C-alpha cells in the first residue's frame, strides 16, 4: 500500500513541477504580449481618477514604473505574484484574486454543468451511432454532429437566446440572477434557471466531438478480434456492448473530456459574453477591452492552471484505470 501512495506522491510531484514550469513560460509570454500590445494601463487608471495634467500623468507613469525595462517590470510582477499578490484590478478597483475567486464560482457552475451535459449526451449518442453504424440513426446523428461542430458558439447562443428567451420567454435574457435583488436573496433555483441556456449552448457546442470520437472507438471495438470471439461464445450485440464495449471506450472518452478543459474555457468566454453571464470569461474580455492588465494577466495564469489540471486528471485517470499503463508505471 505504501508503494502505491509513494508512487502517487511521485506522480503528483512530477506533474507539479511540470505545471509550475509551464505557468512560468505562460506568464513570460503573456507579459511580453501585453508589453507589445497598445494596451495602456495608465490611461485606464486615469479614467478612474478623473482628468490629469501631463506632469501628473508622467508622475503616475514613474510611480507605476511603466517606463522601466520590461524585464525589470516582469520581475517585479512575478515577485509580487509569488507572494500571492496579483495586484488590483483597474476596472473593478478590487484585488484581482477576489474577482477571480468570485467570477470563477459562477463560471465553474456553468462550465461544470455543460461539461457534464456534453459528456453524457456525447457518450450516449456516440454509443448509439456506433451500435447502429451506417443505419438511419447513425446517419442522422452524424450529420447533426458535423453541423453542430461547425457552428460558431456565439451564433448558436444568439439563436437560442432569440428563440427561447425573446420569443418563447422560457429563459431569462441574461445574467446569473434576477435583476433588482441582492445576491444573498438569490435562490438556488433562480441560479440554475439563469444557468440553463448558457450551459445548453456550451454543451451543444462540445458534445459532437465526444460523440464522434466514441462512435469511432465503439466501431473499432465491435470489429476487434475479441468481440468476434465474445460473439462466438454466444454473447449478443448488447451483451458485448455491456461487457466489452463500455469497458474499452469509457476511458478514452473520459480522457478526451478532461482534456477538453481548454475548449470549455474558450467556449465559456464567448457564451458568457452572449448571455451577459458574470463569469471568468466575461471578465477576461472586459479586462482586455479596458486595458485592465493585472486582471488580464491574473486570469491568464489562472486559466492555464485550470487547463493543466484538466490534462493532469486525464493523464492520471489512464494510470488508474488501464491495467497496461498501471503496470508500465510501476
Amino acid at each position, binding site marked *: 500500500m505504501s508503494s502505491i501512495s509513494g508512487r502517487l506522491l511521485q506522480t503528483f510531484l512530477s506533474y507539479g513541477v511540470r505545471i509550475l514550469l509551464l505557468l512560468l513560460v505562460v506568464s513570460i509570454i503573456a507579459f511580453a504580449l501585453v508589453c507589445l500590445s497598445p494596451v495602456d494601463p495608465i490611461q485606464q487608471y486615469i479614467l478612474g481618477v478623473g482628468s490629469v495634467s501631463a506632469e501628473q500623468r508622467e508622475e503616475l507613469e514613474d510611480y507605476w514604473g511603466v517606463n522601466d525595462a520590461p524585464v525589470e517590470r516582469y520581475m517585479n510582477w512575478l515577485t509580487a505574484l509569488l507572494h500571492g499578490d496579483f495586484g488590483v484590478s483597474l476596472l473593478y478597483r478590487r484585488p484581482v484574486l477576489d474577482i477571480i475567486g468570485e467570477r470563477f464560482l459562477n463560471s465553474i457552475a456553468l462550465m461544470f454543468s455543460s461539461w457534464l451535459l456534453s459528456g453524457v449526451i456525447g457518450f450516449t449518442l456516440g454509443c448509439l451511432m456506433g451500435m447502429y453504424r451506417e443505419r438511419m440513426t447513425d446517419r442522422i446523428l452524424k450529420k447533426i454532429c458535423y453541423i453542430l461542430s461547425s457552428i460558431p458558439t456565439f451564433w448558436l447562443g444568439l439563436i437560442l437566446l432569440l428563440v427561447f428567451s425573446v420569443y418563447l420567454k422560457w429563459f431569462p435574457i441574461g445574467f446569473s440572477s434576477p435583476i433588482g435583488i441582492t445576491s444573498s436573496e438569490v435562490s438556488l433555483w433562480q441560479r440554475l434557471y439563469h444557468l440553463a441556456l448558457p450551459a445548453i449552448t456550451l454543451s451543444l457546442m462540445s458534445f459532437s466531438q465526444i460523440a464522434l470520437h466514441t462512435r469511432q472507438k465503439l466501431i473499432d471495438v465491435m470489429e476487434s478480434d475479441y468481440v468476434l470471439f465474445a460473439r462466438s461464445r454466444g454473447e449478443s450485440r448488447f451483451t458485448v456492448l455491456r461487457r466489452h464495449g463500455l*469497458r*474499452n471506450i469509457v476511458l478514452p472518452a473520459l480522457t478526451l473530456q478532461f482534456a477538453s478543459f481548454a475548449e470549455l474555457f474558450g467556449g465559456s468566454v464567448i457564451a458568457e459574453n452572449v448571455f451577459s453571464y458574470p463569469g471568468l470569461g466575461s471578465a477576461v474580455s472586459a479586462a482586455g477591452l479596458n486595458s485592465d492588465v493585472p486582471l488580464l494577466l491574473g486570469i491568464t495564469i489562472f486559466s492555464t492552471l485550470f487547463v493543466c489540471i484538466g490534462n493532469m486528471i486525464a493523464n492520471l485517470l489512464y494510470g488508474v484505470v488501464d491495467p*497496461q499503463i498501471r503496470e508500465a508505471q510501476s
Partner: protein
Amino acid sequence: MKEPLLEVVDLSVSFKMYDSLLERKELKVISDLSLTLYPNEVLAVAGSSGSGKSLLASAILGLLPPHAKIGGKMYYQGRRLTPALQKELRGSQLALVPQSISYLDPLMKIGKQVDGHKKPHPASDRIKLFEHLGLPKGTEKLYPFQLSGGMARRVLVSTAILSSANIIIADEPTPGMSLEQSIEALSMFRQMADSGKAVILITHDIDLAFQFADRIAVFYAGTTVETASSEDFRTGPSALRHPYSKALWNALPQNGFVPLPGFQPYAGDLPQGCPFSPRCPMSTPECQKTMPPTQKIRGGEVRCIYAT
C-alpha cells in the same frame, strides 16, 4: 456409419468490393466448399496462409461481416443451420478456439473472461481446469497482456473445454509455437475429440495435422480439393488423389522439399475451371472449362477429373 455432426455443402462466401469508383465487383473467397464432420474426429482443414480458411470458421459460426454474401447449405445434426440456429448454438454447441491473444478483451481479467457472460459452469470447474492445464495460481487475476504466449494458448483452449460444445473450431492454434508447444496444443484437441467431441482444425501446418487429425481436407484457392484420411497422407503420393495434395506432400522437407512452381491465385483472380489447372502437370483444355465436381475415390473425396 455414424451420423454426421456437421455438414457443409457447396459453401461459398463472397464480398462486395468497389474495384474502382463505380465498378462493383464480387470477390469470391470461398467457393463450393464441402465438408462433413463426424463425432470423435479431428478434421484438419489444411492450406496455405491467407487462403480464406479463417472465413470458414466465421461462416460456420454465422459471424461473417455484414457485407459478406453467403451461398450453399450447412446442416447441424441434420438440421438446416440457419442464422437463428447459429445464434442458439454459439457458445453452447459451437466453440471457437482463436489463434492469438488479441481475441481476449485487453481490459478484462482472465477469470471473468473465461467464465463467460452466462457463467454456465461454477468457478471451481475453471480453477480445476487451470490447474490441470498447468496454469499457475492467480492466472485468473491477470490481464491478457500479462500472459506468456503459452499461457494465453491454454487460456483460449480452456474456454472451449469448459463450454459443453460438441463442435470445436480451432483456427490456426499453432503458429509462433515451438514444436513441443504445438504438440501439446494439438494433443489437447485430440483429447477433446476422443472424449466425444468433434474438432475442425484449421491449420497450415500440414505436417502436424498428419499426426493428430483423422482426416485432412486440403484447401486450395477457396475450396477443398481433396479430403482423405491422415493415413493416406502419411503413406504418400501413391495413396493421394489430387495432384495438389501430391505436390504438397513432395514439398515437405522430409519428402524431398520439391517446390511447386507458381503461386496460389488470389480470390477475385481465379482462373476459369479448376483453380489448380495453371500449375497442374496433368492439366488439359478440359480442366479449364468447369470446376471439377467432387468424386468419391478410394474412400476419399477429390475434385479432379483425372483423379485415380
